[in-house]
């Protein structure tokens, strides 16, 4: 190998190494922080204890917020999967030209700052009498999570021969049956991945939660935010570590479901 090529290789490897450090290091800091024995955020910590995890366990608000986030995330995921699949089917299979712009409309919430949607949804929820309910948060989250399901399901639908559904119809399957026995198995993994992405979006979402949730329906990001604005103790690091682990596991399952070169929808 020439000196130039070797130099290139080293430079490249260094760059990648730096990038990996840049991306991962801050997270490792958080994890390390969660074991510190001191009250303030000094780093590096002098000794490692589990005291913050115990504080976390003892504080019902964290557990409740975590549970709320899981419940809301699951409901959001379900609603998004429904909305996303219906729209994806319509846009991909109906063959009508006027439907294409609607595809853009469905994806639009993903591109807009959540704050705008939040301040618009807040009075809407007031009008509908849904403010401070779980429903409000779920509905709001579904608006921004559906594009993800729409994207993955659309990709899945485009990935196979539409003649399969036509064949099912000639073989005697009506609309619902051809969906259940043909479409669903074919889009299965795409739908599941979209659902997991929807859950992840909801679980981490702050803006809509700030406006649509209430102390009764506290979500984890909201509680984190509250703490960060006021009392900054390393309990936050403990919470953060748990969230990181949870997210990691969630995404691990996505990796297992996905083909290696599939396109990733961007949140």
């Amino acid at each position, binding site marked *: 190998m020439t000196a130039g090529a070797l130099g290139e290789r080293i430079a490249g490897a260094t760059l990648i190494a730096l990038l990996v450090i840049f991306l991962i290091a801050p997270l490792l800091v958080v994890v390390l922080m969660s074991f510190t024995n001191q009250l303030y955020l000094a780093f590096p910590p002098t000794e490692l204890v589990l005291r913050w995890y115990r504080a976390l366990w003892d504080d019902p608000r964290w557990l409740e917020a975590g549970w709320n986030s899981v419940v809301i995330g699951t409901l959001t995921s379900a609603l998004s999967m429904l909305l996303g699949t219906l729209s994806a089917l319509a846009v991909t299979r109906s063959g009508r030209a006027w439907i294409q712009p609607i595809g853009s409309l469905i994806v639009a919430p993903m591109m807009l700052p959540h704050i705008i949607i939040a301040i618009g949804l807040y009075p809407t929820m007031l009008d509908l009498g849904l403010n401070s309910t779980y429903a409000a948060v779920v509905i709001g989250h579904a608006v921004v999570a559906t594009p993800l399901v729409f994207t993955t399901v659309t990709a899945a639908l485009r990935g196979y021969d539409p003649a399969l559904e036509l064949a099912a119809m000639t073989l005697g399957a009506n609309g619902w049956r051809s969906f259940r026995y043909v479409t669903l198995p074919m889009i299965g993994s795409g739908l599941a991945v979209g659902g997991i992405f929807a859950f992840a979006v909801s679980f981490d979402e702050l803006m809509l939660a700030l406006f649509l949730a209430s102390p009764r329906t506290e979500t984890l990001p909201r509680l984190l935010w509250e703490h960060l604005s006021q009392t900054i103790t390393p309990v936050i690091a403990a919470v953060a570590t748990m*969230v990181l682990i949870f997210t990691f596991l969630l995404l691990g399952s996505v990796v297992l479901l996905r083909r290696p070169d599939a396109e990733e929808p961007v949140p």
Partner: protein
Amino acid sequence: MTSATARAGRPWVMGRSYALLLLFPSAYLAVFFLWPLARVVLRSLMDPKPGFGAYTKVLFTGPYLYILFYTLEVAALVTAVCLLIGYPVAAITARMRGWRLRLMTALIVGSLWMSAVIRSYAWMILFQRFGVVNQMLVALGFTDQPVRILQTMTAVTIGMVHILLPFMLLPLIATMRRIDPNLLRAGRILGANPVRLFLGVYLPLSLPGVQAGIMLVFITALGFFITPSLLGGGRTMMAAMLIEQEVDIFLDWPTACAVATVLLVFTIALYLVYTRLTRANVARSLR
């Protein structure tokens, strides 16, 4: 042969039932997306009295306009940094194969989904007065005293780059992976040196990815709230923070809606420009 009377009915049309599926999602989006957006725009024009009062305040008086420009500035800076770092990283990643590629992809996608709140928090820890970064700076002799990093544009930029880098990397990698290596080989055979090869062949082919990445990062950066709030604040306020403040603290909904509408219009305009550009690109490449 029995001659059954022919049923005179409308012919059964294929796509009809599929199109009907759109009813529920359309209704949902109309009520919970379009109508709220419309409300925001309307409120900025109607409250407290009809007219452009709110806009005059936002676009022509001091702090608001400044904040809007500051938002643009930060978004542009973040986008530039992401591109600068992202392009070479993406190029190298695009050439990886097997477990290396999968690991990189997992890392990039993974960091995409890690909580923005948590990551901003991590930088908060790192940028503290006596945090790691300051300790390193002092140890390496760059300064005598710990420097204030938090609540500066630098902190916000670094934090946002950390979160938005994957948004730049993914489209870039996707496009670069599609570049046919035969084209580069052909260029080399034809006598192009590495610089010309890059400028003349690789760069133009990677352009769609660059455009997508820039668009994604810039538009997302415009609407950012979490990172600028935690790492900036005070002097370094961005549009989303302003809107939140107007609503939460000042209860000044008209102003908030006006700023939001400006942000909305700007985002939509950018997106339209982008789609126009990419369509022109596709047309050009097809000629």
